[in-house]
């Protein structure tokens, strides 16, 4: 009995000390830089040397992609390697519909890279012609990310028609397609999309959908407050100075709450705005600018002298306007950063 107890004690002591050492080693070791992803082999080569395990490697890369997206979604919103990970995953498993689908959603919604999103989804459609989800997501990208493009509604309707043609699309896609043809209110389309994603089993997707739904409601609240402001101006002959004036005048019962901690205000152009909505738009616009700056540097080996050079060099179709009226982008030509 004593011998057994001594042995158990020895085992506990051995594993306890090893755990302590491991903890110390982990603390001493600097965090792995994500630039390791740069050293993943080219997907064209990788595909040939997986010894038949390309499906499993694609699964592992997809999980890595989800962890990467989750980490940066809750952190710095820098999604530099997202496209690379999605491309590699889908190259290794071209039948992986959800990697195409959610990879595309992440690229469009988080990295603000509509082109990469549409490219990835169209590539997926070639190998998975029966997957209604892929043309549906392209349609959503046209509607939500390119609302100002003249033919976006036409393109969206075209892709929705493709989704319906698979014969597998759920009824709401048919409803959307019909509604689009009647010049549908796009805010409702967006709300419906995030609502369906909120039912996902995955926490990352649920969190993203929750966040986006809050932003949709804040935009609706801005529109309602804007109408109240118009009534205020019509009744009193002058626009309100602050949103509180609307409550004081009895045009609204109370200011809506912003669960993201932002606030409503009237900007210099007289529009009712919300800081959470604008901050998100700032982040998206900065991501677009950063993408243009990186592409410029890759081609010319230097940062552009000013942001307008991105437009003249063909790196961006047009400079995004600063979402806060009256503010401008502060560009540091030495570091290539935009604030």
């Amino acid at each position: 009995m004593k011998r057994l107890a001594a042995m158990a004690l020895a085992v506990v002591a051995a594993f306890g000390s090893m755990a302590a050492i491991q903890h110390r080693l982990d603390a001493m070791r600097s965090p792995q830089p994500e630039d390791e992803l740069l050293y993943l082999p080219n997907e064209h080569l990788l595909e040939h040397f997986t010894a038949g395990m390309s499906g499993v490697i694609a699964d592992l890369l997809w999980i890595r992609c989800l962890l990467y997206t989750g980490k940066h979604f809750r952190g710095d919103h820098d999604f530099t390697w997202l496209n690379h990970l999605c491309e590699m995953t889908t190259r290794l498993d071209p039948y992986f519909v959800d990697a195409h689908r959610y990879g595309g959603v992440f690229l469009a919604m988080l990295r603000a890279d509509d082109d990469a999103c549409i490219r990835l989804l169209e590539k997926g459609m070639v190998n998975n012609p029966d997957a209604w989800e892929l043309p549906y997501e392209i349609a959503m990208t046209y509607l939500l990310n390119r609302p100002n493009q003249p033919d976006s509604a036409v393109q969206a309707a075209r892709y929705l028609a493709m989704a319906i043609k698979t014969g597998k699309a759920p009824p709401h896609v048919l409803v959307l397609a019909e509604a689009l043809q009647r010049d549908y209110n796009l805010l409702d389309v967006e709300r419906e999309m995030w609502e369906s994603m909120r039912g996902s089993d995955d926490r990352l997707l649920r969190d993203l959908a929750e966040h986006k739904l809050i932003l949709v409601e804040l935009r609706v609240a801005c529109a309602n407050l804007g109408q109240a402001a118009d009534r205020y101006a019509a009744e009193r002959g002058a626009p309100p100075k602050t949103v509180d004036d609307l409550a004081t005048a009895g045009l609204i019962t109370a200011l809506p709450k912003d669960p993201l901690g932002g606030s409503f205000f009237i900007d210099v152009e007289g529009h009712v705005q919300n800081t959470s909505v604008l901050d998100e738009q700032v982040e998206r616009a900065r991501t677009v600018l950063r993408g243009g700056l990186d592409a410029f540097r890759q081609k010319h080996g230097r940062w552009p002298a000013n942001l307008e050079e991105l437009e003249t060099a063909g790196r961006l179709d047009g400079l995004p306007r600063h979402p806060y009226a009256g503010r401008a982008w502060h560009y540091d030509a030495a570091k290539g950063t935009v604030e």
Partner: protein
Amino acid sequence: MRIIAVAQNTFRESVRDKALYVLLFFAASTILGSKAIGWISIGQDIKVMKDICLAAVLMFGVLIAIFVGTTLVHKEIDKRTLYTILAKPMRRYEFILGKYLGLASLLGLVTVVMTVAAVLYVVALGGGVDLVFFEAALLIYWELLLITAFAILLSSVTSPILGALVVFSIFVLGHGTRILADLPRQFDDVAGKRALELLYYVLPNFSNFNLMREAANSVPVSGAYVAWAMLYGTIYSAFLLAAASAAFERKDV
């Protein structure tokens, strides 16, 4: 009849090999552990499980084929049991064929057991299995038969360790031969391009047997494709066994 006797003996001997059970234990652990990896994917646990289960069937089947196959002939020489066998009225090619069929039966049993276990596990956890899953398992078995033929050939001409290394290299490279047929444009004016393209048809193309991606994503595959792939494997294996028999005939034992 003599071939069957050698095959039965090889099967019995291989079943008693402890290494087989160690590999099967790891295969079972991998199949059971696939659910854990599936948990962290977005609703893709069944797809991930199918991928890992089929990969485990292939990988552990390959390890069994290599470790058992490359020692089959060498062990008989080392233990001097070969002299007793060859003293009987038996041709050397019959010995090689018997060894091959014995190991092929073992691999068949292992593949069936692992596939059935994988299917039960996937179904028990709420997934579904299509015909393509079984087609994938069938072609994995045909791939194992081809690898076994390589292992028997190498077992007849070289040492077990060297043979195992060579066969494993062939297995890895055999999945990447497509690169020889998809040479980049830089090769357009290179004289060796034709030779490399010819090499594509000479080297074994294990990708022909790989339906794992289709199985995991439930993408149907025609029966004709499966039949052609099996014919390819059968002809290649027959050629290798003929080469192994010829090499063994010349071997001074």
